[in-house]
């Protein structure tokens, strides 16, 4: 397994946000995490990315213990984050955002090559390379956010709500890109509120409710459960 969480618990202040979660992602897999708002999906992603520290449980990546790694070294292990709400460095140019993506030591030497690859993936960003990231449209910002994460040359890409606030046509474009990234052999952990979309692309999925995993399996098996169809698709 590339990433393995065992009995993971994370909380803000006193209140736990996720409790006793065990998930696994194999190299090259797309795994979706779905669940209602406030279920703890972002908490899980932020914990893997090093923004939050686990309170209990084990978190292993490529055989090493992530809990023992300093927050700013997690990226160096091969994990890159596309955070919820994109969180670009709004006052910096598109190009500078991408350069920050390649800040980690292993990626910095290949910065120029990486930028070319991102521009090849999103040709429109090349035209806007000197524009402040905060002035881009939502869809373009999402592309910069994904490009920034790819600059770190990850083995695991964490995608937190990539469709949030985007027009449907743009969402489809973003998911095309996700497929393309997956085709390059990068494993993806996808948190998505658009359940139908997430289950259409994922190899496997976990259902998170109230900070716990309540169901797991391949999309077809999850969709066969009437409770999940009712709760998430209203059918």
């Amino acid at each position, binding site marked *: 397994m590339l990433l393995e969480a065992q009995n993971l618990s994370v909380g803000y202040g006193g209140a736990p946000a996720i409790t006793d979660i065990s998930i696994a992602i194999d190299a090259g897999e797309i795994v979706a995490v779905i669940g209602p708002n406030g279920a703890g999906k972002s908490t899980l992603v932020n914990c893997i*990315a*090093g*923004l939050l520290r686990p309170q209990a449980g084990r978190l292993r990546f490529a055989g090493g213990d992530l809990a023992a790694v*300093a*927050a*700013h*070294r*997690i*990226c*160096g292990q091969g994990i*890159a*984050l596309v*955070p919820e709400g994109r*969180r670009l*460095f*709004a*006052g*910096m140019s598109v190009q*500078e955002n991408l*350069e*920050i*993506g390649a*800040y*980690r*030591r292993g990626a*910095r030497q290949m910065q120029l090559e990486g930028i070319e690859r991102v521009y090849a993936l999103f040709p429109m960003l090349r035209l806007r390379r000197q524009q402040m990231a905060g002035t881009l449209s939502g869809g373009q910002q999402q592309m910069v956010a994904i490009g*920034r994460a790819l600059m*770190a040359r990850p083995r695991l890409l964490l995608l937190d709500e990539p469709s949030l606030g985007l027009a449907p046509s743009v969402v489809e474009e973003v998911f095309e890109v996700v497929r393309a990234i997956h085709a390059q052999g990068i494993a993806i952990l996808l948190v998505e509120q658009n359940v139908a979309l997430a289950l259409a692309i994922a190899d496997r999925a976990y259902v998170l409710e109230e900070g716990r995993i309540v169901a797991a399996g391949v999309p077809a098996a999850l969709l066969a459960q009437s409770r999940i169809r009712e709760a998430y698709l209203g059918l």
Partner: protein
Amino acid sequence: MPHLTLLEQALISGILAGGLYGLLALGLSLSWGLLRLVNLGHFAMALLAAYLTWYLGTAFAIAPWWAGVAIVVAFFVYGVALHWVFMRFRVTEMGSMLITFGIAVIVESTIQTIWTADFRRYETALAGASFVVGALYVPMLNLAAFVVAALLAVLTWAWLRFATIGKALRACAEDAPIATAFGINHRALSFLLSGICAAYAGIAGVFIALIATLAPSEIWTWIGVVFAVVIIGRLGNPIGALAGGILIGVCEAMTMAVADPAWAPLVSFSLLIALLLFRPRWI
């Protein structure tokens, strides 16, 4: 109506004084803009550096540039230590203001206790040196301060704009957790920046010793000037700090030329109030 030469002379003095203001504002602007810490003690530390320069020069005959080197090193360490305290106790922006206010008072008292409240003047060979352009007179030391201020402002600007570490610092200022997720060691960079800001205060202090008359109570009259410069120049913008310094320097010098010099301190504070009230987007 004052004579035209008088106004031209005022313009030159204003620009040169503005260089010193800009130099003083530089460190404050960086720590406020990039670390979100408001350092009310910045000018107090610069004045301490000025007293040290003067004292080392008059009591031990140490040349100002050597004193400057020692001060820069010591102040860098102080900056790092100060930031360690801020991090250790998770001090907020408001808290940083209170603490550095306390530091300013302590520095003032220390200066007063050691060197008394008397006015001090550092008499060096260069003190009176100047050259004449037409009917105008340009003091050497003020020009040197201006050149150093301009050099530091441009270098700092370029460092933030083009260097990897500079870009990382700007990224941290915008979103520290995300910057950390991309491998930037936010803590280490904050220490570095805080040290640099304090060192800038030290450099400014050396020039204050060479140019101005020293008195401990000066700390409070300069605060308005420096904060006005920082806000006019936009937080975290080195070139802006220099430009803001020149603007205020010229305004003050012009006021002194056409009105009673006693009104000069009013200029920067009034400008600061006006700026806060008609707040431009960048504050």
